[in-house]
């Protein structure tokens, strides 16, 4: 992969959840420009990934708001500051440059150079759930169209293969339907004869099953077989504990995402039980210039609430300003009375 030219900005934010988004607002009022990196393909973090439709009742001033609505409103609020998003990218490395700034790189080859880094990563990165089958990792990254994959990037790589899919959600059913026409064989396994997935997808899968194009078993994968990197088959177990061998080239488990701290643990920042200790005046980690706000930080009295993260973002921005603009005086102003701020917000 050819690395793109480094991007220089004022603040690099890891995480585009509600707190990362509100940080854009607070930093924007102080004329600091932001780039945000998020492993998900859209903004909102846990709010949109875990509970987009569930109501939240403890956002000040919003008696009831869903995770998706809150995200939409925050996006609207930060729009005047033109934040730049790098979605679908995992922040993988952070290093200090000779000039005192930070270099943050992602797994997609993006490089951000900024005097301030804000970690608003919640509990970490959303990554696919890995079934607890012994040795499964030895079949991952085995190459296109073979072994274990948690996502389908190019359908063509699965043409002519014996495919095994596990799961009962939308991804499991959608890929069953989409891959069946080009697979040599396609088998779907799930722990029950019922699916969480959309009903029309279930109907389509049942039609494919009736036409003999898909095999469905109430079963789960107990063991994987083959040489490391070359999957040859699996052991399936039914609800009555009976076990049988099933030959396959590919195993695609689709059990959604879970959160792992991930590469942040390797950034050299002091951690306490996977959280970043910060002071409560600046919300800075023990590494100057690296701030942590929202669920990822810890301090005496910490509450993992969205509203706490908003407060932390406001105080962080004040401290970050002095690092990003060491020779400027910070003018504290209110959005209600400052024509200067209102101009930035595009309302006057």
């Amino acid at each position: 992969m050819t690395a793109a030219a480094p991007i220089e900005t004022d603040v690099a934010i890891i995480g585009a959840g509600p707190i990362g988004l509100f940080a854009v607002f607070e930093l924007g009022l102080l004329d600091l420009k932001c780039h945000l990196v998020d492993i998900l393909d859209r903004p909102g973090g846990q709010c949109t990934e875990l509970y987009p439709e569930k109501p939240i009742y403890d956002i000040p001033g919003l008696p009831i708001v869903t995770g998706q609505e809150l995200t939409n409103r925050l996006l609207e609020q930060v729009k005047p500051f033109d934040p730049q998003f790098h979605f679908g990218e995992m922040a993988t490395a952070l290093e200090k440059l000779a000039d005192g700034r930070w270099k943050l790189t992602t797994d997609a080859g993006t490089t951000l150079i900024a005097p301030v880094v804000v970690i608003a990563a919640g509990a970490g990165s959303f990554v696919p759930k890995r079934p607890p089958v012994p040795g499964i990792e030895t079949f991952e990254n085995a190459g296109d169209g073979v072994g274990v994959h948690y996502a389908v990037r190019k359908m063509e790589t699965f043409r002519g293969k014996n495919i095994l899919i596990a799961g009962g959600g939308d991804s499991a059913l959608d890929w069953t339907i989409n891959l069946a026409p080009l697979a040599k064989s396609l088998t779907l396994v799930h722990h029950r004869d019922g699916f969480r997935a959309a009903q029309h997808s279930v109907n389509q899968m049942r039609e494919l099953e009736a036409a003999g194009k898909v095999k469905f078993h109430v079963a789960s994968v107990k063991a994987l077989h083959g040489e490391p990197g070359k999957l040859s088959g699996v052991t399936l177990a039914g609800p009555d504990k009976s076990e049988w061998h099933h030959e396959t080239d590919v195993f695609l488990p689709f059990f959604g995402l879970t959160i792992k701290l991930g590469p942040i643990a390797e950034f050299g920042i002091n951690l306490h039980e996977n959280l970043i200790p910060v002071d409560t005046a600046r919300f800075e980690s023990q590494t100057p210039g690296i701030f942590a706000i929202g669920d990822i930080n810890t301090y005496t009295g910490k509450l993992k609430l969205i509203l706490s993260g908003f407060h932390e973002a406001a105080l962080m921005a004040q401290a970050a300003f002095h690092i990003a603009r060491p020779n400027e005086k910070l003018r504290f102003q209110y959005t209600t009375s400052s024509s200067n701020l209102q101009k930035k917000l595009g309302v006057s």
Partner: protein
Amino acid sequence: MKIIAIDRQGKEHTLEGRDGWSVMEILRDGGLDIAAECGGACACATCHVYVNDGWFEKLPPRSESEIDMLDMALAVEPNSRLSCQIICSEETDGIKVTVAPE
């Protein structure tokens, strides 16, 4: 009221349940390694436990949304539950659960 919980290392813990609290909350506050990412909204399947020793049948049945959400859990067994959906009461005194693998 007691909750007997077996962690992923096989160690047994006896925890004090609280009336009206979810088993997930008791496990989490008791220091067991349980992600409970969504905080109890039946939206993530990361508080998955197995309910042991006949206790599964004694509990109120799983809701549709819990059954659906278990589709996103790993290593589901017939006695699988999301612990955020089991509410402590006198009736659950002595319940035994095992934290499911990650």
